């Protein structure tokens, strides 16, 4: 239901930086459905576990379109939409080293 994940990489800076932690949950009934603007953790068949920002949710195809926060991000602009079943959950709390 809840999972702590460590962030690696820079594509979500300055929101989340290398070494930050996020608490992820699939309890959508409690925390709300996935919407544009949410940050999600997903499992991509080639890239493995990724953390990205949701830009668009396509209900008909049951998939989401994810992006990073910089031009060099590897995301849906490159590999297309992500099936919702591949989403581990949405970030409900970011734990950063202040």
């Amino acid at each position: 239901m809840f999972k702590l994940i460590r962030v690696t990489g820079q594509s979500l800076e300055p929101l989340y930086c290398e070494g930050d932690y996020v608490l992820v949950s699939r309890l959508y009934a409690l925390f709300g459905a996935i919407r544009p603007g949410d940050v999600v953790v997903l499992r991509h068949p080639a890239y493995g576990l990724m953390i990205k920002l949701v830009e668009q949710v396509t209900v008909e195809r049951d998939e989401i379109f994810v992006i990073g926060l910089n031009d060099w991000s590897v995301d849906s602009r490159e590999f297309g939409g992500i099936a919702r079943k591949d989403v581990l959950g949405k970030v409900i709390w970011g734990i950063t080293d202040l």
Partner: protein
Amino acid sequence: MIYQVVKALDGVFHFEKAKAHCDIPCGIYDPHMAQIAALTVIRMVDLIEELSIQHKEQDAGFINSMARYVAVKEEHAELAKREVRVIFGDYFKKEHVEKYPELPSLAHKIYQLGSKSRQTVSREPAVELLEAVNRFAEIFWETKGIGTKRVKAPYKPSEEVVYPVL
């Protein structure tokens, strides 16, 4: 405070990592190209020096060779900078910089020596460039748990180069 607690827990439970990918994660990093580039810069300085001594008359052949040596020196000094910039920016992480606090100033030194090597035909900055790149290579291999050795390159300019002991 919370971050420190979670980090300590991570040390015990090893949480999964989610990548915020940038660029293609090919994972292929090697400082060897930077070292070869630095060696090439020294070689070009030597060739420029030899050419100026041998050819007192600045004929077309002289101009052609000199232009080629200078172009290669320019290109390789820049290549050394670029290779180091990529490894420093993409491979080295915060933990590496904490363990090797000299890294940021070393990378900066390499960029400056690369530029100085382009501006001059002096051997000194070129040799310093190679030495700085060699140190960068030593740190790089150390972070991978791979030892290094220093050997003289088996070709001119026969300067010392750091190689990984694989």
